[in-house]
């Protein structure tokens, strides 16, 4: 048998590794900044790009797509070559992938800070960037599959199964969720509206967690954990079962983000039960990780890489058990919209993703530089600081979540709400302070890593092309093998099987929601937004109001008492995109329309502390100063019309006339309360929108049954 000599490409791994470190720090800083704003609003600097509503999407996108994304690419390219015994398919594609991805990140950072956003969580990037992501993802796919096809190893190792499932599912999720109609170069509306948009968005959002933050990282675990510990993988059988079960079941669980909302009950229940069924497949990954360390626990005591991995895998286990528990309606009743969710995602983010990324960096960099880690002690200190950081982050957030939920729900014996919304917020401000300290510790640990890795690189000499050799793969006569071994020889079969499995859940949930009318009963009094309201809504989206304010009154006694009638599916049919939100740092706004006078909103936007002394909302002075861009109105009306919003024919040409008319009346109304403003200001449009939200349903003729 001829042994072939070839070289692993370390340069691309180095590039992705450095990008991981840089964007990790950037993403964490953005998170810290956002966290501090919650108790110290002035740190928003009264500057639009640094206000919470824009920093928060920057934080989430940077951590998910820049930090974890780059870490996954680095780890995948490092392990894929070694598992396939082949250099990457094409150096050129590798570099297109790298620079393309970094360009996407850079443009994402710029557009998000400028308020250019689709308003859909974790899919905020506008359509040109969406297209770029699709193209670069295809490049990544070709490069990965090219490498797999020219491999010198007959069977695909479990890590590669996970990489394949990741690639195909992320492609599917991204494309389906990003279908939007462009209004202009940097503005689009989601193709879907209201309940349907929510379903698609959380099918995407949940599975972004599954297939961007979980499956690739599990793949990395399957490579780096046995390598670092020198122990065999605990159970091949478990790998097979938990892999297929995981990808099939995960995709169904999206609706658990929408429990008690206007999403039809049957879809909510599917979300709940599939989340429960997901416990075992998720834990399969944890068990295969932890049991692999059997007989190597003495090494864990010595080696910081293994330490990070053990805590990462444990956090993975914790959060994949907690997730299903949160999907039970009785728990979700308490946890949803509170900081409990924030604690939950950070166990996953800081613990699982962050620590695993640190572990692989500590593993790969000394090896690629042909040296030892500069300081094991420093890495161990990083580990402890990070662990304490996670605890200090999570515990206050759990506490805050419990406490706020319980305050929201308390009534006096006379039947009045016991606490005003703001009281429930000011009460947990100390917890917000504590969590930012936790975050700071975690960030400090990461900076220690930067120094440690830097010293390691300086001490060693980078090996750009690592020599390796392996016999070429020769065609083999068909021999009888275990059925799964057969699939492992066939990457394309594996790709197709994964695609089929991950498609089922989404189809079963989406098709009825889109086609069966009973799922979204029509409310005749719900009418399209006026042009001014539409413009105001786009300002609402631009400023990221949905990052703190929900628009979804759930059918709970306390919410109905606090906000008004609970939300109905038919109310959102013209909402492209939906703005239900996922967190209530501020009160729900689904019934804000008509609740306060126009002048209240004006004063509140100018400085929230004038109307609510202890409010933690940022000031939005620029909305009061900026002129509304009305040139976009006709294009927006046309786009909405294409999406099926029933504006009369030719309305786009006269829309601005109606817009000015409405703006004049609001300005006149403000003048009555001694507020002088030109009707052409953005604030007027925003007030128009806020005064409209949730009002239409009140105009509906009451059915007879309620009149008796």
């Amino acid at each position, binding site marked *: 048998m001829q042994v072939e000599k070839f070289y692993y490409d370390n340069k691309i791994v180095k590039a992705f590794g450095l990008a991981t470190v840089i964007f990790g720090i950037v993403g964490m800083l953005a998170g810290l900044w956002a966290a501090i704003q919650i108790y110290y609003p002035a740190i928003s600097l009264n500057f639009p790009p640094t206000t919470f509503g824009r920093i928060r999407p920057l934080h989430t996108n940077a951590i998910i797509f820049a930090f974890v994304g780059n870490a996954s690419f680095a780890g995948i390219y490092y392990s894929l070559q070694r598992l396939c015994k082949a250099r990457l398919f094409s150096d050129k594609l590798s570099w297109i992938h790298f620079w393309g991805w970094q360009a996407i990140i850079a443009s994402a950072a710029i557009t998000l800070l400028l308020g250019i956003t689709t308003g859909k969580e974790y899919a905020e990037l506008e359509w040109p960037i969406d297209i770029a992501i699709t193209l670069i993802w295809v490049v990544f796919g070709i490069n990965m599959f090219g490498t797999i096809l020219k491999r010198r190893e007959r069977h695909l190792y479990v890590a590669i199964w996970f990489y394949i499932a990741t690639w195909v599912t992320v492609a599917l999720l991204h494309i389906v969720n990003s279908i939007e109609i462009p209004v202009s170069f940097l503005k689009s509306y989601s193709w879907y509206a209201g309940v349907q948009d929510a379903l698609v968005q959380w099918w995407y959002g949940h599975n972004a967690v599954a297939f961007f933050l979980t499956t690739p990282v599990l793949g990395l675990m399957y490579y780096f954990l046995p390598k670092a510990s020198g122990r065999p993988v605990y159970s091949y059988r478990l790998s097979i079962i938990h892999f297929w079960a995981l990808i099939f079941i995960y995709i169904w669980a999206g609706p658990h983000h929408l429990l008690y909302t206007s999403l039809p009950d049957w879809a909510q229940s599917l979300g709940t039960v599939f989340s*429960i069924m997901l416990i*075992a497949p998720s834990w399969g990954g944890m068990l295969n990780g932890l049991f692999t360390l059997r007989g190597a626990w003495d090494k864990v005591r010595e080696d910081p890489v293994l330490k990070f991995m053990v805590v990462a895998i444990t956090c993975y286990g914790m959060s994949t058990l907690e997730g299903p528990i949160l999907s039970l309606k009785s728990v979700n009743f308490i946890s949803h919209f509170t900081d409990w969710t924030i604690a939950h995602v950070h166990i996953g983010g800081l613990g699982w993703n962050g620590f695993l990324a640190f572990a692989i960096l500590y593993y790969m960099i000394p090896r690629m530089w042909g040296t030892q880690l500069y300081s094991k002690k420093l890495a161990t200190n990083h580990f402890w600081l990070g662990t304490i950081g996670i605890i200090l982050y999570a515990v206050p957030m759990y506490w805050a979540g419990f406490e706020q939920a319980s305050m929201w729900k308390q009534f006096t014996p*006379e039947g*009045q709400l016991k606490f005003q919304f703001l009281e429930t917020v000011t009460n947990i401000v100390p917890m917000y302070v504590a969590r930012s300290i936790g975050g700071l510790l975690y960030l400090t640990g990461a900076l220690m890593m930067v120094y440690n890795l830097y010293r390691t690189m300086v001490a060693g000499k980078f090996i750009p092309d690592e020599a390796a050799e392996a016999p070429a793969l020769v065609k083999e006569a068909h021999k009888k093998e275990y059925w799964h071994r057969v699939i492992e020889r066939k990457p394309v079969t594996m790709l197709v099987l994964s695609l089929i499995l991950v498609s089922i859940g989404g189809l079963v949930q989406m098709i009825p929601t889109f086609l069966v009318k009973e799922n979204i009963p029509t409310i005749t009094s719900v009418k399209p937004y006026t042009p001014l309201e539409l413009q105001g809504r786009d300002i609402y989206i631009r400023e990221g109001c949905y990052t703190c304010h929900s628009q979804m009154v759930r059918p709970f006694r306390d919410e109905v008492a606090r906000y008004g009638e609970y939300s109905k599916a038919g109310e959102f049919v013209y909402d492209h995109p939906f703005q239900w939100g996922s967190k209530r740092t501020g009160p729900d706004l689904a019934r804000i329309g008509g609740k306060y006078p126009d*002048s209240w909103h004006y004063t509140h936007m100018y400085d929230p502390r*004038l109307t609510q002394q202890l409010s933690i909302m940022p000031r939005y002075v620029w909305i009061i100063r900026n002129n509304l861009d009305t040139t976009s109105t006709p294009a927006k009306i046309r786009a909405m019309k294409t999406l099926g919003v029933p504006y009369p024919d030719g309305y786009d040409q006269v829309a601005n006339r109606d817009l000015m008319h409405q703006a004049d009346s609001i300005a006149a109304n403000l003048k009555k*309360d*001694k507020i002088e403003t030109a009707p052409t200001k953005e604030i007027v449009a925003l007030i128009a929108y806020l005064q409209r939200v949730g009002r239409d349903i009140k105009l509906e003729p009451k059915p007879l049954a309620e009149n008796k």
Partner: protein
Amino acid sequence: MLLHMRTKNKYILGLLTALTLPALQPVWAAGPPAPSVFSNPLALTFIILMTLLLVIIGILANILIGAADVKLRKRKKAGKQATLASVITVLLLLAAPVLYAQDPAATDAVKSGPATIAGMSSSTFYIMATVLFLELFIIIALLINIKFLLRTEKEKIAAETETPEERANKLSWWDRFNSLRPVTEEASLDLGHDYDGIRELNNRLPPWWLYGFYACIIFAGIYLWRFHVSHTGPSSKQEYERSVASAELKIQEYLKQKGDAVDETNVTILKEDADIAAGKAVFLKSCAACHTETGGGNIGPNLTDDYWIHGNDIKIMFKTIRYGINAMPSWQSQYSNKQIAQVASYIKVKLHGTNPPNPKAPQGTLMKEEAAPAAPAAPAADSAAQTKKVAMN
């Protein structure tokens, strides 16, 4: 060996007992030991149990010290003092929770007030329960320590008779729980796969994992059946309706008991200082944002002049505040009827007729005090619906 106990160990035993004693102090401190406590059968049982457990602790502590003593002598050369110090530390650690225990017990006593549990004051009950719990905790801790000390002995004996292979093949309960095979048998599980040096074993699935998976699938089936086939589980809407209905019942019962049924049909101006002060507090908290602290008006109308938009009769004002009208929000879910009456009275008694600086221009109709109330503006459709709902209160 107990007979050969050295004075040092005696000292330790004494220390242990002394440290346990403070746990009993709260019982004595909880008030005069009223004869009733001792006539209560449960209290007597508790006290007997406490004493019994204390005796057990004493015996176990003796055994522990004895075992430690044996170990100590065997390690004459190697850091005798260190071992003794560690024994003392262990004992101190064991005792520490007892010391802390006083605080929670005391807090309980403060909180529980005059309520009684099983015939004794709840503070006594909780203190006794806490002491019992702590004693059990100490016993468990002592047992663990004794087991640890004795085990090292057993292992030494085992080490002499057992081959290293036998030892490696031994499975702990944890291994058996997970169906793990001994590490030495690993070769038989190796599938011979080799990916960049990574080998794969073919261990059986941990049984609890597999059955847990089945259980989750069964749970899913039952859940779907219950909520969407048999409909024995409530839908979100039904859940809401039930919670509101049960709350309504409770509120009605409470109001009936309290005899506090002020509403817009019978409200009068409250002139008591306490009511006015309470009204002022509500006003500053919720009304001042729009009407300003002086009542001069800003976003909302001026409340100090004689011009009223919806009427100046206390009953009408009550209604305006309670249900809201036009731009005026409804406050019924934030404030009780009593509080609404207080704030309306505060406006009428204290704010009205003052001359605040920089007032808002008059709005509405001129209405002199004592004039017949003008007809209120027609209530909006939704506010009428609210009236109907609230009238049940």
